[in-house]
């Protein structure tokens, strides 16, 4: 599904990522973990076209997507969420999700300004389609609320609903459980499993080990910009190198 190979990122002499390679299998939930500063978010930013890497390639469904900007990746059914949720605060919850359907609609500037019949019916389709994703994430009752005033946990759900509206085949989530309480985290893990059950491949960067071990099919461990290990949650838990990276070495 998604393959990264030899990704290297150097920020002004500091090597943030050093030749990282791994593959994400279709239909899996893959977790990318690692101590702070391991390069997880940098890797995400490279895959999703926000940073341009120093070296290496990214392939999506067999096509080279290295260096494509985020808006082109959305059209190739790849979407992401952010660690510090990036909502459109001045819009309602419903409108936020409607923006997610941008690539599924095509009326241009002129057609919209003149309210052409096809743009009216398209608008209706967007309006109704967005409601479906609000229902999926369980925030239908907040549809007309301002997104800017949402509590953090609900904002996270909205960001996921908005990303799903793009109808992705792969979704990358940057620390989806950050800032959530235990109850919200539990609901999130169920939601992520339901997303996978829709046939969407999920990749997540996460600090919450319990969540990662519970829901991930495969785990990639990064440490100091290098890939330390890769495998099933059980394999990772038993890997001595991973244990020492997390707990620290004595010698």
């Amino acid at each position, binding site marked *: 599904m998604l393959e990264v190979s030899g990704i290297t990122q150097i920020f002004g002499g500091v090597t943030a990522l050093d030749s990282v390679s791994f593959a994400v299998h279709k239909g899996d939930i893959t977790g990318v973990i690692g101590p702070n500063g391991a390069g997880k978010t940098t890797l995400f930013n490279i895959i*999703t076209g*926000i940073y341009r890497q120093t070296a290496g390639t990214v392939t999506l469904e067999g096509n080279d997507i290295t260096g494509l*900007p*985020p*808006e082109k*990746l*959305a*059209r190739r059914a790849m*979407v*992401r969420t*952010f660690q510090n949720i*990036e*909502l*459109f*605060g*001045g*819009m309602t919850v419903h*409108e936020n999700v*409607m*923006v*997610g*359907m*941008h*690539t599924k*609609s095509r*009326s*241009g*500037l002129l057609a*919209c*300004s*003149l*309210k052409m019949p096809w*743009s009216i019916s*398209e*608008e209706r389709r*967007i309006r109704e389609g967005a409601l479906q994703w609000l229902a999926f994430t369980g925030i239908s009752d907040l549809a007309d609320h301002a997104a800017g005033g949402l509590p953090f946990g609900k904002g996270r759900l909205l960001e996921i609903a*908005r*990303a799903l*509206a*793009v109808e992705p085949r792969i979704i990358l989530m940057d620390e989806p459980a950050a800032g959530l309480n235990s109850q919200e985290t539990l609901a999130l893990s169920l939601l992520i499993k339901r997303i996978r059950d829709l046939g969407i491949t999920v990749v997540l960067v996460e600090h919450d080990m319990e969540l990662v071990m519970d829901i991930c099919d495969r785990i990639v461990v990064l440490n100091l910009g290098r890939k330390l290990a890769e495998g099933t949650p059980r394999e990772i838990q038993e890997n001595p190198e991973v244990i020492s990276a997390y707990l620290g070495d004595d010698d």
Partner: protein
Amino acid sequence: MKRDLLLFACFLLFIMSAPQFFAGGYLMNVLVFVGINTMLAIALNLLLGYAGQISLGHAGFFGMGAYLSGIMTTTYSLNPWIAMPVAAVVVGCLAGLIGLPILKLKGHYLAMATLGLGIILFIVFNETVDLTGGPSGLSGIPNIEFAGIVFDSDVKNYYLIWGVTLVVMLFSLNLASSRIGRALRAVHDSEVAAQVLGVNARILKVQIFALSAVISSLAGSLYAHTMTFISPASFGFNFSIELLTMVVIGGLGSIYGSFLGAALLTLLPEFLRGANDYDIIIYGALLMVMVMYMPGGLVRGFPDLFRKIFKKKAESGHA
């Protein structure tokens, strides 16, 4: 949807009935300017209020529309009906070309770049004496003619200008409530999130910048044909700032707000004429009070104010 239509219908009725009360008076002439300024404020609001991109050079696009129309109809004796769209297309293309590089800039840097653009255009109006007549202006611009009617009086011009302004308004209201309007507001709130969802922010910003320039150019052309005389002084940096003030006072991201802002800032100097030199102080104080107590602009400020007063009354009723 129906409510929006009803609101627009009421507004249309209100605008169209105004000459019944003011015809013949000096105010009629001022109301023509309210129309032109409304068009300009809407143009800038699409860019600033919706897409969140500032421009301090819009007076330049307004001036270009006026001068292109003026020069084509005087020096080259073209019909205004040809000159106006040609001017709009030229200004739109120019704005698109300039927009491509400068809209990569953000915040203060974009403000500086557009400020520079406005200043350059002003210098062109002022210095190319052979073409524009320089500081002494360009006169003898013909009035617009339509179906045998020459638009040469305040009342006729009022209907002409407001006819076009209402079309621009409807056009902008439609745009604002569409997928494009949503994408613009998305870019405003979080450009990176909008991009991740598939919005091509770069192209969209250039498109709206060009559209905004086209509307400004149209307003400029109409201004030239209404006044029949134009000079660079009307298209300077001061006017760009005045437009910005209209948009902010009226309410960012509100089309009707742009009308309120334009109406207030166009009518106020007329009412303050009696205050002699103090008018500028009143004007400045009003701006400060507005920004401090109605940051959402008139269009949101008044309903909020009503709500506050109403709430206070309800509370004191309980006590």
